């Protein structure tokens, strides 16, 4: 069987598995875990908010590592650098998606729970800043005319990655409107809620890997087509006119 056919089948299988895990997660979150005592059913927003928030802090590091690889290889091995660049752009888009969903679901939860859509506390502000940094990263890639777009974007990616630990630590370093950590050691989350959290975390992680890989493949195809067009243009320019 051809390699592309095996990859296509693996992609379909991964999509089906992701949806299956997400269906289990939905069932756990809506129908099976007990209703939280103080907030009631609106607390079930948490099971979609938390996985996106966690993964929104993981994908920036894929972008960061790919950007470092791009800077390392851009003179040593330009073909490898192009591959790293494709992974960086895919990870940046998925970051914007996941962080954007985190902000939106947080606001939709905040209004009924706190009575306000937004508070300028350290967690919310640093998360918004993270989203804006990756939006600006994509805008630089889209509109920069410098001829050094890859380098500019990679350097911006390094600055953007600095915000990730600040977002993570913000609820530990400062008193915020956003709740303190609820998961892990010292967390206030009752173990009866764990299945909904873990199934949804697994499901949205699998989904994220799927869209990251698919977007990466699309970017690689775009790069290869661009290279072939450039080669054809050079060949055409070398032809002797009759």
């Amino acid at each position, binding site marked *: 069987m051809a390699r592309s056919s095996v990859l296509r089948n693996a992609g379909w299988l991964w999509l089906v598995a992701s949806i299956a895990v997400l269906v289990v997660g939905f069932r756990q979150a809506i129908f099976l875990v007990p209703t939280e005592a103080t907030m009631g059913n609106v607390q079930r927003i948490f099971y979609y908010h938390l996985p996106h928030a966690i993964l929104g802090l993981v994908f920036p590091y894929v972008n960061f590592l790919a950007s470092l690889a791009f800077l390392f290889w851009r003179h040593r091995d330009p073909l490898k650098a192009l591959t790293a660049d494709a992974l960086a752009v895919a990870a940046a888009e998925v970051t914007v998606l996941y962080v954007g969903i985190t902000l939106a679901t947080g606001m939709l939860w905040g209004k009924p729970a706190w009575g306000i859509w937004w508070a300028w506390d350290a967690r919310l502000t640093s998360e918004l800043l993270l989203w804006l940094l990756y939006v600006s990263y994509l805008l630089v890639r889209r509109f920069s005319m410098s001829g050094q777009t890859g380098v500019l974007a990679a350097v911006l990616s390094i600055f953007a990655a600095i915000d990730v630990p600040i977002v993570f630590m913000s609820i530990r370093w400062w008193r915020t409107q956003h709740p303190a950590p609820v998961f892990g050691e010292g967390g206030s989350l009752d173990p009866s809620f764990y299945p909904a959290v873990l199934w949804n975390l697994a499901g949205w992680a699998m989904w994220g890997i799927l869209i990251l890989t698919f977007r990466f493949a699309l970017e690689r195809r775009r790069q290869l*087509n661009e290279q072939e067009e450039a080669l054809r243009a050079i060949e055409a320019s070398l032809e002797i006119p009759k």
Partner: protein
Amino acid sequence: MTWQTFFDFSTMGHRHLIFVYAGVWLVQLGYLTWIALNWRKSTRN
């Protein structure tokens, strides 16, 4: 919670719960569809 109470639009909390669950799926599937459409458009040379 049941399907009936899930689709209860009477309070803000319930409305926002549905907006989150429907909205997240809509946005995620929308992005996947956008990639798939571009994939189909960009045939390999």
